[in-house]
């Protein structure tokens, strides 16, 4: 994403920025950046109905610049599109003040975002989004007999591009043809899915992971076949990396990313960093349970004592429509940073982020044991679901 213009009043934090989103992932950042109440200005198309003096109407689609105050935001992960709905707040020759309009932010089209308060999280997000050097496109294919996930692992999102599920008959006494045929069909389907969903001009590395020998069989099949349909894969033979996973389910992706051989190669990707941080949390929970806590109440209490060494928060908490809720977490993050702790903001689109979101969304490693927090767990762990 390109940042064209930035004006922020550092006294009260309000100001505006102008961006050009360049790729699908940028829209994800924008989605995390924009909150209800922000003002967005962007070029858009609007159907305008004019009525002549005789009463005949004439509808026209006009291109115009509109400024709306955002009321709701919707983001489609698969299609990578972002729609902002809100009321017009600026005089316009076609659109009345207060009229509703839905802006859809598109790639390569600039927009201006005005916020009442650019907090630390938002600024960090801008920085992350505009740092183009970090992008390393990685694909992961996790599979087991009859089940495969073709995923794209990007800086801040893991997108399941294809899920393949085929029934594989078992071997039977005296005949395995059913089994073998079904396996070949399965490999063909996975191979085709890879070609269809992965752009080999961008993807730098494809991790192929499975239990047992399925991965070897798959690659052997697609790389050795004479058929022209797998030519793209054969040409990009060198970018495939084999690793081990325990299953073909989606959460096995994080297992792959935590594989020490793989992490060495991808140490700079956010996904691998997140997996590592969460791994540390679990190790601590095992070794020194009084130094690892999860849950908002526990983390806030620990932060009051300036005890947090590493804080892990999922970004879904900052997208909360409840402003007070968002502020609470922003405050927590700023506090932790203030006394020298590190903060990991997990992307809720990564498997590790999904895991953290299920683990109440916030977890912390402490500098010193605080066994008194254990008692807190009982009353604050009220489940809404």
């Amino acid at each position: 994403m390109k940042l064209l213009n930035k004006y922020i009043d550092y006294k009260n934090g309000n100001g505006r920025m102008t961006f050009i989103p360049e790729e699908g992932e940028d829209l994800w950042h924008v989605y995390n950046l924009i909150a209800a109440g922000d003002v967005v200005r962007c070029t858009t198309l609007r159907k305008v109905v004019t009525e002549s003096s005789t009463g005949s109407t004439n509808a026209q689609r006009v291109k115009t610049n509109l400024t709306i105050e955002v009321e709701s935001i919707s983001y489609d992960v698969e299609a990578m599109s972002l729609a902002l709905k809100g009321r017009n707040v600026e005089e316009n020759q076609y659109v009345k003040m207060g009229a509703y309009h839905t802006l859809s932010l598109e790639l390569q089209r600039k927009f201006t975002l005005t916020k009442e308060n650019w907090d630390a999280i938002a600024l960090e997000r801008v920085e992350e989004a505009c740092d183009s050097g970090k992008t390393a496109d990685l694909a992961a294919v996790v599979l087991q007999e009859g089940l495969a996930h073709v995923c794209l692992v990007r800086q801040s999102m893991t997108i399941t591009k294809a899920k393949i599920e085929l029934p594989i008959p078992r071997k039977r006494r005296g005949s395995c043809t059913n089994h073998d045929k079904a396996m070949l069909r399965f490999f063909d389907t996975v191979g085709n899915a890879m070609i269809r969903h992965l752009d080999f001009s961008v993807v730098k590395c494809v991790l192929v992971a499975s239990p047992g020998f399925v991965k070897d069989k798959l690659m052997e099949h697609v790389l050795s076949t004479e058929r022209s349909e797998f030519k793209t894969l054969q040409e990009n033979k060198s970018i495939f990396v084999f690793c081990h996973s325990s299953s073909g389910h989606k959460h096995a992706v994080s297992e792959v990313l935590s594989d020490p051989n793989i992490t060495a190669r991808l140490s700079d990707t956010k996904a691998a960093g997140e997996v590592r941080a969460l791994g540390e949390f679990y190790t601590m929970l095992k070794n020194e349970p009084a130094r690892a806590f999860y849950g908002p109440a526990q983390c806030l209490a620990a932060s009051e004592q300036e005890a947090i060494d590493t804080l892990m928060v999922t970004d879904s908490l900052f997208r909360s429509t409840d402003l007070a809720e968002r502020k609470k977490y922003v405050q927590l993050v700023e506090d932790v940073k203030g006394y020298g702790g590190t903060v990991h903001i997990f992307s809720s689109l990564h498997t590790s982020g999904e895991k953290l979101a299920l683990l109440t969304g916030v977890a912390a490693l402490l500098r010193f044991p605080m066994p008194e927090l254990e008692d807190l767990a009982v009353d604050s762990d009220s489940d809404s679901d």
Partner: protein
Amino acid sequence: MSRHRIVRNYIGVDSEYYEDEVFGRSVEEDSPLSPSLSQFIYNRGSVPDEQHGITRSSVDCVQEEEEMELPEADEEALNTMYDMGFEMDLCKDALLQYDNDVTRALNHVIENGAQQHVQEDRQSQSNAAQQGRTVQEDQLATALQSRLQVGGSGDSTPTNCLTPVKSTTPRSGSPPSTRRPLRDPASVNSTPTATPKAKKSRPKDIDVLGILNSKTDEKPLINVAVVGHVDAGKSTLMGHLLCLLGHVSKKELHKNKTESQKLGKGSFAYAWVLDETGEERERGVTIDVAQTKFQTSKKTVNLLDAPGHKDFVPNMISGASQADVAILVVDSTPGGFEAGFEQGGQTREHVVLVRALGVQTLIVAVNKMENVGWRRKRYDHISSELGVFLKSVGFKNNELIFIPVSGLEGENLMEKCQNPALTEWYSGGSLVDVIDSLDPPKRCYDRPFRLVVTDVFKHPQMGLSVAGKVDSGFLIVGTPVVVMPGGTTAMVKSMTTVDDKCVDYSVAGEQCILVVGGTDQTKIHNGNVICESHSRVRTTLKFKARVLVFNIDIPITKGFPIDLHYQTVNEPAVISRLISTHSKSNGQVLKAKPRCLTKNQVALVEIKCERAICLELFKDSKSLGRITCRYGGNTIAAGMVIEIT
């Protein structure tokens, strides 16, 4: 050749056009069929010869006879009773006797029912004696058959079996079957045809429970899973046993031997009996569970050869969850036993799993004893080390049987070992003796029918087939069934056992293959549960389970993603709530809402799945109420379903 083509076309037409009809209902032959004759039998109607006409008319006669009789009894009352599962003629007699009073007639029939069984058994025994086949098997078959006949014809004496089965008697005019291997006379009857006779006598009316009660001296069925560390010799042991029992043809064995030698893996010849896929042979490991059935002198054994490799534990779970008894194979060679038994070896994990999956009796086969010269010291060392561990897992002394064997040499498998090095100190029985001595497990025949799908495939002749183990209850051919959790309905067209024998019904504990119609392959998956429409299994997204946490590296927290395994199901799920931890000894709540679960804790948790799954409470169904949780290739917990929400 042209005649072959006709046959082939006919098969195609048959399965396409008669989708809704019920096929493969066989009627047992009365007189034994010579194998030379059997190959000439194929398909009713495949040749429009004269005999066919004769058959028709004879059946018509039967029909008319019956119709004429009907007015004498109150038709409605008769049908009521008929629908309740009693034989037509019995009902008729009773009704006439009691002037069409249904209640009294029913009482009469029920009372007489018991007598009838005895009679039929005696009858079937004498029949079986005539035939050169195993008594028990025939007893069941003929009892069944006489029932079929009684149900349809007006003839009340089950002795007269000849007339009604005319339509299935061999027809020399039939073209030889080229596609279907005919193994024995019994399988001749399993040709997927619906004879006019079979259509009339609806097998729905088989009194399965009655038959089960009457055939007490039948060889009990037992499901045996073979588990153990990779390369302990599970497949070789079982392959060799099958060879000794005569279940493997010399030709096949010879082929395996030469081919394995070609690959420089001569020792794998026996394992190849069970490891049949190219992948398994090439790598020399079992990947998926192999299933076969064999008979010993006292038992019918259903063998499930599980893979030992760590990556295939999910497959092993699907096999072991169907087992009543497990054989744990351990390698006795120096270093071999230790590798499997140490942390990370599969011996431990498998033992813990089979215990968690409800296996009560464990046979420990100390394998490869020839490598250690059949030394007693080694055997004792292994037994004592394993024994301590097995007891810590929860096996009691009387549930454990240790036995020294050699899979490769085939020692002490079937016959008692003659090797002086062993007989010197070992006096126990061989593996087969041990299997024979086991108590048959209790089956739930009276519970609703449940079959967990282990395999869905297209049978070249029969069409869409579903394999699985009947978990509880029984099913008769021709019954409409429901595939859960999808809820698709299907019709059971015919039913075969694992070894391709056609049957009319299947009962709890048996492995069977159902040929189904009215649905397609995309609607039935492994792990689905097949039940009857009036007693469906529960489906859920969320349930509570009491689990025992195993020896785990990282603690289990809320939101922990797991692979949920039970039976053949393998679904991603999440531990959504930790409700409480409990004391191991008395089940008292130690802590409500714990922060995390660490090793060896007993806890109540809530598990959420992504897709609906079929479960039952543990107290209702032992096998559908047990779950296993795995994470990152390790089994982290196992438990039972306490509450389905």
